[in-house]
């Protein structure tokens, strides 16, 4: 079976691509007939496997880590298509290996959803893991945030080399307490930026009260984000603060750049000695946002930004990072499985910042839930149209001559990109 699994899997992959099918089927086939395929293939990589997990920012961070490592001359295997579950990894591997099952890469950097990561690390213990944050997301799937923290804990415990943790997220930073054999590195934020990252715990705490459960003494971080300018960022590492240009926008994306730098430094041997920091920073300054994560398209000669929102903290950060002034605004809320069916999360976001300009269009299967939410925050609403295609057309027509921004849940974003691809150039993501 071993010798035919790869050619067979690749064949299924070709056929299912021809039919325009999804990316998971070939993975399923190879997993069924050759369950050791993924583990065996990834075990051959000289720098091993790095897993990126957490609630928010996995896709953008993974993309950054890949580009940073490539700048150091490494050949990187990654699950670029957003198939962030085990079968998706197997499918992505099939696309990369040659017909004899050999993977020509130095290191794998994999974005994994928290729940799927647990299954993955049981089979393939990673050499590195980067754990970003634990926030309220898809609680209808995982139950509770403490449960999600346990999932990340498990990923860290299975890691054989270095675990990179977010120093500013108490649930993530605390993971270090129980690790024994692993090297632990942190990425962190300057105190002056902490207030731009409201966490779920102090979401409803009294204004000005200290964030609960923060670590009593912050450990030193390998990389600290010190400052964010309009198109620059200051990072501190090895005792020096450097300023670099950034194409990424949104403070949370740039904080994830600190995470990516910390992981890349670990993989490249760490310290000033091995990694070539000039090229690392050049690579970082050129990273473009991942699709739908602050991605900017051009429609009618005006920018149209897509901001993916999938949980309260992401929505709050999105509103904070992309101020509404001067923009036409649309919000698209779907409640399909991948979006989460529970609408409660909309009530954990404050929309006061949209009060001045109002919201021009609301759409998606839960457009009226969003309208109701805005009504209670006294935000003016232009029009409500649950069907995405006509809503988008009206938004573009009526916002003509103005830059535009759409806050959208995951499946709404896919639908919007599909519609936009009919009128502008939208990067195709398979």
């Amino acid at each position, binding site marked *: 079976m071993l010798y035919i699994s790869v050619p067979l899997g690749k064949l299924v992959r070709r056929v299912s691509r021809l039919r325009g099918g999804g990316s998971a089927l070939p993975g399923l086939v190879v997993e069924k007939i050759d369950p050791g395929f993924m583990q065996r293939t990834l075990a051959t990589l000289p720098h091993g496997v790095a897993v990126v997990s957490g609630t928010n920012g996995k896709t953008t961070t993974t993309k950054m880590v890949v580009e940073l490592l490539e700048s150091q001359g490494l050949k990187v295997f990654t699950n670029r298509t957003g198939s962030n579950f085990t079968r998706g990894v197997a499918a992505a591997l099939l696309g990369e290996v040659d017909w004899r099952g050999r993977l020509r890469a130095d290191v794998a950097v994999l974005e994994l959803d928290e729940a799927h990561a647990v299954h993955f690390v049981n089979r393939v213990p990673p050499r590195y893991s980067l754990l970003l944050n634990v926030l309220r997301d898809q*609680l*209808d799937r995982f139950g*509770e945030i403490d449960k999600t923290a346990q999932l990340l804990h498990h990923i860290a415990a299975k890691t054989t080399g270095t675990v990179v943790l977010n120093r500013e997220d108490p649930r993530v930073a605390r993971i270090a307490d129980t690790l024994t054999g692993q090297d632990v590195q942190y990425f962190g934020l300057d105190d002056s930026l902490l207030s731009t990252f409201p966490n779920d715990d102090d979401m*409803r705490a009294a204004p000005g009260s200290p964030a609960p459960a923060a670590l009593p003494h912050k450990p030193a971080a390998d990389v600290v984000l010190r400052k964010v300018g309009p198109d620059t960022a200051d990072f501190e590492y090895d005792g020096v603060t450097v300023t670099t240009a950034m194409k990424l926008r949104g403070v949370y994306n740039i904080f994830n750049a600190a995470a990516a730098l910390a992981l890349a430094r670990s993989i490249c041997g760490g310290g000033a000695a091995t990694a070539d920091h000039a090229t690392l920073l050049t690579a970082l300054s050129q990273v473009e946002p991942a699709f739908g994560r602050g991605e900017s398209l051009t429609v009618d000669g005006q920018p149209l930004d897509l901001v993916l929102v999938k949980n309260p903290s992401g929505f709050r950060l999105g509103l904070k990072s992309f101020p509404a002034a001067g923009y036409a605004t649309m919000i698209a809320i779907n409640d399909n499985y991948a979006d989460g069916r529970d609408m409660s*999360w909309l009530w*954990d976001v404050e929309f006061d910042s949209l009060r001045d300009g109002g919201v021009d269009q609301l759409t998606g299967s*839960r457009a*009226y839930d969003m309208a*109701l939410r805005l*009504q209670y925050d006294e935000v003016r609403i232009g029009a409500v149209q649950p069907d995405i295609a006509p809503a988008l057309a009206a938004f573009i027509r009526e916002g003509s001559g103005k830059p535009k921004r759409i806050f959208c849940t995951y499946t709404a974003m896919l639908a919007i990109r599909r519609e936009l691809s009919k009128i502008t150039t939208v990067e195709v993501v398979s």
Partner: protein
Amino acid sequence: MTAESAGAVSGSKGTIRVLQLYPRDMNIYGDWGNALVLKQRISWHGYTPELLEYNVGDEFPADVDLIVGGGGQDSGQLVIQDDLQSRAGLLKELAEDGAPMLAICGLYQLFGRFFKTHLGTVIPGIGILDVETRGTDERLIGNVKVATEEFGEILGYENHSGQTTLGPGVRPLGTTAKGTGNNSSDGHEGARYKNVVASYLHGSLLPKNPAIADFLIRTAAERKFGTFEPGAPDDRFAVLAREHAARRPR
């Protein structure tokens, strides 16, 4: 304790003080939505809302007219447990006296007699409601529709692993038409006792079920002023949000 007040509004029919119980530790699924809806509707009815918070260790505010509290994770419930017990007498007295209260999910369970975890640990409740809850390893998750005589159809979303059974001292809030509710056997959802409304439903509950919000506000006003003179809140979005939500899958 913090207070957020709309201030003295001229022509106000009077101030209604709303207390959020443990918003710091018990606020997991949009519980703020319930407090916000009460605050806004009180003002849309022509009264002045005063929003108060009570967290672990705070002084308990006097002259509270309406109490609202929400769900928590298991860890949040552990944090508040001792403090809640120390306030049991006070809260029970208020409930017996007819104070309107809304208890969602975790607080609904703790308003009952006890919560027995699936490992067998018994966490005592404060006994306002004659209900018992037992933890299971089955999680009941999804959209819910409940038929009630008092409030018409209630729409919401459940996500709990504790299963609650009602004793003779309370009546169910309603009967589930979609979803599970209190437990997987009797088809009931929530509990009603005097002016206490208890439910597993998030969504948040009050925005799409303004009839419950208005019941709580009316009761608070009548207790305090003897009468309630309603205003005319604009519920067009609530009606449409209900229609669309009712059509969504479980």
